[in-house]
């Protein structure tokens, strides 16, 4: 492809008009268990994609491969042009681009909410503590947790903890956010407060990849929905299409059960 001089390239020759994340034929097995059997997908900048599917279909493994928490067996994963499936991968460079929020929040229990948000920018990026604190306080406000700065994670509700986890991830100023079933451990009432936070992020143009069981939410915020089963992407499309006219039998069966 001829380089367009008006678009700036990064060090990997990637330009913002190319997919921000590109997976090509990704395979992963745990022992004899094939978890990913050739997954390909593209995510463009500012897109929100939702990955749905039955338990054990490889959804969580898929997004864990994107930030190299799980090494893949074969295939290509490029994040802004950086090849993730590379033994000499610069993990820090990758992980400051890719934020991740987990099902079990996974806050650091020995640090206050504000400290949780501040830790990585100070320790990992070696940024100035004072500046990080200003940013962290703003992020706490953004996730509507003003006044909870000095509280320990164990004293917060699940929904509050999850919002701290989102703020903690945003403090690294990522280009893309991965959400791994972030509302699965919450009670129905608090699910909403977390989803509101994610929707705001999406509306601000943050690129998001969500593994979720919240079909209503997926239909509402996603630009593209992927359905996985047994390590393969069975079907994908814009949510309106996908939910109204599923084509594959497995998709129909799954949606029939959950909707």
């Amino acid at each position, binding site marked *: 492809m001829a380089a367009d001089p008006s678009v700036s390239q990064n060090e990997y020759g990637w330009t913002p008009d190319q997919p921000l994340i590109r997976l090509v034929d990704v395979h992963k097995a745990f022992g004899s268990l094939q978890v990913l059997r050739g997954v390909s997908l593209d995510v463009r900048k500012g897109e929100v994609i939702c990955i749905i599917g039955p338990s054990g279909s490889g959804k969580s493994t898929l997004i864990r491969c994107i*930030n190299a*928490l799980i090494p893949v067996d074969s295939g290509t994963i490029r994040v802004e042009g950086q090849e993730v499936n590379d033994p000499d991968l610069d*993990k*820090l460079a990758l*992980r*400051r681009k*890719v*934020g*991740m929020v*987990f099902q*079990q929040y*996974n*806050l*650091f*229990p*020995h640090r206050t909410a504000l400290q949780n948000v501040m*830790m*990585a920018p100070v*320790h*990992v*990026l070696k940024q100035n503590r004072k500046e990080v604190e200003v940013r962290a306080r703003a992020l706490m406000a953004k996730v509507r947790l003003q006044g909870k700065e000095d509280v*320990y*994670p*164990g*004293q*917060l509700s699940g929904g509050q903890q999850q919002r701290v*986890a989102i703020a*903690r*991830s945003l403090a*690294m100023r990522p280009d893309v956010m991965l959400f791994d079933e972030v509302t699965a451990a919450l009670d129905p009432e608090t699910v909403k407060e977390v989803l509101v936070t994610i929707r705001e992020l999406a509306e601000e143009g943050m690129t998001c990849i969500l593994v979720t069981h919240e079909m209503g939410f997926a239909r509402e915020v996603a630009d593209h929905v992927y359905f996985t089963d047994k390590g393969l992407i069975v079907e994908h499309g814009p949510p309106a299409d996908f939910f109204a006219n599923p084509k594959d039998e497995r998709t129909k069966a799954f949606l029939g059960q959950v909707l």
Partner: protein
Amino acid sequence: MDLVADWFRHLYDTTGINLTIVYDPYDRQRFLSGLGMTIYLSVVSIIISTIIGAIGAWAQGSPARAIRAFVNGFVVLFRNTPPLVQIFFFYFGLGQILPRVENDDGMMVQMISNVQWAIISLSLFAGAYNVEIFRSGIEAVPRTTTEAAEALGYTRLGVYRHVLLPLALRICLPALNNNLVNLLKTTTLAYAIAVPETLYVSKQIWNDSQNVPVMMTVLLIVYTALVGILVYIMNRWERFLSIPGYGQGAAR
């Protein structure tokens, strides 16, 4: 002071309880210096052995097989052999092999003194246990918590320093407490290589004054008090480290 000394001399005359360490300045000085040596051995060995434990437990999780094998070998060696044998090995074994050096008085002496050997061997002995104690704490930290730190870009050392170790320490403190109490009591083995600690000086005192039962009782009381102080400090530390809403801290 004289009044106190007189009273203890009177106690000896009337009951036969001979506490020379109170009324006799020479014995008192000997005993206090022995006590000082015990405290010195304990504090230094506690610090070094705890550092060995923290570093060893980290090395146990190393991706390099040789490092893991080294740590495991160290733990097996020092946990499976009696501490007295270890002290003898260092002082009489290794100490003999190492070259001798001239001291200030022009005498040829061992390069490493008996006090230093005692600290080395006690630290390694307790350190081997501490490695296992820290490992138990590390294994109790959920894998997902370290995964979150990795996802934020922390290196293996960064994860250990900022997340794993602080949490593991809180979990393993009661076990660490136990081992350090044991270490304090094990300092009496330095007696065997003539380190003038509390037991050693007490033996000198009872040899001179023929007050064996009295000094034995004094020893029991002294060690009970020393361990009591250590346990008090460790408990204070445990309370200081407790996290609101997490583990034991939640109950307080």
